């Protein structure tokens, strides 16, 4: 706090918010671990010295207690841990309501020994004498009937035990009654099953523009576009003539992705996908700047060699050709596909462009190799 102690209005155990030296206010509980408490307002700093719920979420206590709950050492351990991590805040008095001393004592007596087995200590900040006796003048918290022993981050075994949620259907038997490995079908867990791999994904991941199933089934059949349209990654529909024209028409710009590729066996023949069809690039007006642009746009560095590949007779007539746009150099900052155009005639020379790219200099250190200092002993 800016002052050694909080302003008088924070008398008692009103907490002082060190971020701005004022009395803290109640805030909604957002720590997933403690979202099933009989209260939903807390205030920081908490009883373990954490300054925010985010700090609590990455604290070692937020890993320690849920792991300890799995041992079943004390029925209300998770409840007690949450009264420390997210202490109750009374919305009227803005006072923090701590756990009762008996709750702290019971938890410590029953679980501290378990911790010592694994060489860990009970959290120092939770000395029970700081908490009020239950039934005294000062308000304090005791578990009411129906308080859940498990947190929302746990899976509750049929036997009542709590195991960490990530152990549910992980192929290992964690519950004493093995119930964590039962009913592991996707639908039984309100998940969606990838048809081919049988992997389970959240329903919210379907048609969200990101492939989560190995064969991308979760992003298939998400939209029905008209015949003359193609679907963007985010499932919008864009007219095929606008595809790979060098300007974004899909709001996620996916109509301009993967327009240029170096294909065929040598991995160097330039192919451009324009207006939803595949084209070869006629070598007649090609130049070195366009070779550099090709490698840079593909993130492949710089051109190491450029050649013109002559087509076998008979094949060239069936190909679709793109030609270098007469104003190709006036379109600064544009992608390669914006600098090429279709023409009514085929490619006079029947020669295609082939570009080999090589990674630019990277990862080299000129200074500071790990040299061992030679020092006489």
């Amino acid at each position, binding site marked *: 706090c800016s002052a050694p102690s909080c302003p008088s209005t924070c008398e008692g155990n009103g907490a002082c918010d060190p971020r701005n030296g004022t009395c803290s206010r109640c805030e909604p509980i957002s720590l997933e671990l403690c979202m099933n408490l009989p209260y939903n307002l807390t205030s920081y700093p908490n009883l373990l010295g954490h300054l925010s719920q985010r700090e609590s979420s*990455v604290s070692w206590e937020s890993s320690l207690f849920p792991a300890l709950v799995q041992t079943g050492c004390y029925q209300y351990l998770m409840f007690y841990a949450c009264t420390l991590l997210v202490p109750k805040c009374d919305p009227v008095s803005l006072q923090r309501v701590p756990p009762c001393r008996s709750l702290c004592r019971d938890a410590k007596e029953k679980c501290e020994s378990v911790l010592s087995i694994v060489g860990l200590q009970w959290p120092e900040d939770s000395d029970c004498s700081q908490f009020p006796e239950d039934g005294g003048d000062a308000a304090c918290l005791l578990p009411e009937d129906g308080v859940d022993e498990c947190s929302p981050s746990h899976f509750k075994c049929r036997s009542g035990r709590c195991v960490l949620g990530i152990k549910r259907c992980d192929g290992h038997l964690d519950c004493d009654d093995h119930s964590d490995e039962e009913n592991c079908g996707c639908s039984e867990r309100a998940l969606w099953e990838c048809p081919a791999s049988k992997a389970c994904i959240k329903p919210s991941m379907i048609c969200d523009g990101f492939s989560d199933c190995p064969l991308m089934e979760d992003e298939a059949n998400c939209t029905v576009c008209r015949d003359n349209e193609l679907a963007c990654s985010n499932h919008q529909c864009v007219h095929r003539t606008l595809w790979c024209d060098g300007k974004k028409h899909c709001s996620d710009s996916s109509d301009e992705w993967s327009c240029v590729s170096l294909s065929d066996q040598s991995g160097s023949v330039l192919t451009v996908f324009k207006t939803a069809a595949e084209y070869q690039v006629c070598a007649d007006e090609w130049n070195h700047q366009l070779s550099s642009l090709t490698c840079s746009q593909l993130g492949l560095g710089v051109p190491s060699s450029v050649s013109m590949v002559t087509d076998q007779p008979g094949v060239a007539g069936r190909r679709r050709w793109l030609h270098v746009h007469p104003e190709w150099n006036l379109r600064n900052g544009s992608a390669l596909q914006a600098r090429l155009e279709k023409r009514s005639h085929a490619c006079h020379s029947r020669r295609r462009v082939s570009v080999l790219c090589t*990674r630019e200099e990277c990862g080299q250190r*000129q200074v500071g190799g790990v040299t061992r200092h030679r020092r006489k002993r």
Partner: protein
Amino acid sequence: ILGGRVSRQGAWPWQCSLQSGQSGHVCGCVLIARKWALTVAHCFEGRESADLWKVVLGLTNLDHPGAHSQSRGVRSIIVHPRYNRAVVDYDISVVQLDSEVEETAFVRPVCLPRPGQLPSPDSYCYITGWGHMGNRMPFKLQEGEVRIISLPQCQSYFDMKTITARMLCAGYEAGTVDSCMGDSGGPLVCEEADGGRWTLFGLTSWGSVCFSKVLGPGVYSNVTHFTPWIRQQIYIHTYLSD
């Protein structure tokens, strides 16, 4: 960096310091091209605006930038759209600088991994940063050698968190050499077998509280997983800007 040592000037020319206003150094970052750097998404929480930030390269001593340092403003910050703050997944951002850096012996880009290229478990790599050393914050860039840990083994250290394919683990069970607060966004790099070339495989992301009792390895954003996305963002912001 816990358990590390002071690095020699120019030893890690891709390391950069992401700085904001009065705070000075906030996170690490990594130069991958003359106008592009990588860092982690959680560095920008609450400070998403590009004009709040600058990137300083060629630094060894935070307090004395020196003649080799170069400072650039940030033109745009591209946070991964699936960044999940609660479980710290997809923790990566691409940073576009407002102008190109000049490549020198002290400022150079690191290599990005090839598709599918991953460091092998139990191989040794390096982490660097100006983050907490366990007892104090350093001025000089620190370096530490860490061992790559397989995902199943890493999961065993973190009961409460899911280690996803977007993550990479490195360090030691005792946590003796580890990254810490202030190192976030900095590099985990491995030298290629044929020597001489360093590749970026990880960005410092999270771990147990590095000076607490519960130790264990550090968790890094798995750059190999994101390389196609990184290249796509660079392409979009270079050739498709409105």
